């Protein structure tokens, strides 16, 4: 089967004055349809750059990204994105936020409402549909953002450290909820995190990147069954994979750890 997302030798440079800086160097990756991949790597290794290029928010300097066989040329509702800072529209209620993309699509009011209700309930915000974002906790805001992304029915979800600003307990809860949502509403997910446990817990495969220049370092498959549970999280198999990812991230060639 054709992969859902294809990164083909994607390079991105940024001009810094007269110099040019390579943020992403010939990054290639295939993500299968319905797959959940997580991306880890030291900060500044080009994770967000790769994701923004797939989202169409940033153009590659060289190479291209194909989604469902079509070259990405700009943002589009078939590729949903979720940001660390939630990026909800604070003047809109939870429901209005979730309906935002549907309204743009020209979906009729009754259908909009029905769809929004479905996804609001799916993420467990049923009691807060008419609340303004300022009254929600960080975890609830991110659930709202997830519902908003799902509502326009994207086939791909791009998530940039979505749980990075949350406390440890909320984070674990949202991981389980995200997997549950993903099981019921299967989408291809590319999920950036700096948390190795999170990367292993969620993924079919963990993509490890290296910095200077930002590039693909290693792909580590996670051969653990879904649904993932606490039992799995505490299993020796999980620990083994986790250690392998940890090693790949923190013992990068020349050991950047000792440099710091």
């Amino acid at each position, binding site marked *: 089967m054709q992969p859902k997302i294809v990164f083909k030798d994607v390079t991105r440079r940024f001009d810094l004055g007269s110099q040019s800086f390579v943020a992403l160097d010939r990054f290639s990756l295939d993500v299968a349809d319905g797959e959940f991949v997580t991306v880890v790597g030291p900060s500044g290794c080009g994770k967000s750059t790769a994701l923004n290029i797939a989202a169409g928010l940033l153009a590659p300097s060289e190479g291209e990204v194909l989604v469902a066989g079509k070259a990405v040329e700009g943002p589009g509702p078939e590729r949903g994105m979720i940001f660390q800072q939630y990026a909800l*529209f604070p003047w809109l209620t939870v429901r209005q936020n979730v309906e935002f993309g549907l309204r743009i699509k020209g979906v009729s009011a009754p259908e909009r409402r029905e769809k929004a209700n479905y996804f609001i309930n799916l993420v467990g915000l049923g009691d807060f549909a008419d609340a303004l974002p300022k009254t929600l906790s960080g975890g609830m805001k991110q659930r709202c953002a997830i519902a908003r992304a799902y509502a326009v029915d994207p086939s791909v979800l791009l998530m940039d450290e979505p749980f990075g600003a949350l406390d440890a307990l909320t984070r674990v809860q949202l991981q389980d909820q995200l997997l549950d949502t993903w099981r019921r509403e299967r989408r291809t997910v590319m999920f950036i995190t700096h948390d190795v446990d999170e990367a292993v817990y969620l993924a079919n495969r963990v993509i490890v990147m290296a910095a200077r220049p930002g590039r693909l370092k290693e792909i580590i498959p996670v051969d653990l069954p879904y649904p993932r549970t606490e039992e799995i999280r505490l299993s020796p198999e999980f620990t083994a994979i986790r250690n392998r990812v940890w090693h790949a991230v923190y013992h990068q060639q020349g050991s950047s750890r000792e440099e710091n």
Partner: protein
Amino acid sequence: MSAPAKTAKPLRQDGKGQGADLSSLALNLVGLVAGIAVWWVLTASGAVGLPPPPDVVRKFGDLIANGQLATDIMSSLARVLTGFLLGVLLAVPVGFVMGWYKVARALIEPYLQFFRMIPPLAIIPLAIVTMGIDETPKIFVIFLASFLASVVATYQGVISVDKTMINAARVLGANDLTIFLRVIVPASTPFILVGVRIGLGSAWATLVAAELIAAQTGLGYRMQQAQLYYDLATIFVSLITIGVLGLAMDRLLLAIERRLTVWQERV
């Protein structure tokens, strides 16, 4: 999102806030009464050559009875509101254009920065020479004052809209027009409203000063006349009226502002 500092209001809608509101309101009242008492004592004892409260109250009655106060208020308010509305109506689109298009910003910005450094009153001699002595120069100066205050706020509002929020709208399928109408406009509303309030304050201050220099009616003109006849009570009446009207307009805008920005996270 970050709001302009001026809109940060610590007052909450909960019971505790209400109680604090009431007691501070009581203190406000006590302060007011004490102030008037001090004024009364000082003037009655002859320590200062100012009119005592009863004289001023009597003068208020006279000026209300013969309709002069109403006429003055009407002509001052008409000027300020005309100039202010024109200024804001032009400032909002200009501010948006400046925030949205870099070229427009680069073209307009030097003028804005320059005129911002000139007190609006300093334009009066030029305005009188070129526009005559009727209403036009005064309204123009007020227009300028409120325009300059509001345009900068609007433009600041547009450029400080969170880029992530714009990206979020883009990935949901929004085009430029939708982003402008559904994201930029609401997100910059708090900034615009702060600018409008500053603009009104500046318009009111400019108006009264303009009337002192060149007018045949209005609260400023009345004071200027009273000065010629050493009529201190009328000056007091005018000053109090100016303060009360300014305060009332500011509170009105504040209430509107709060109403339109209930969604804002306040610290």
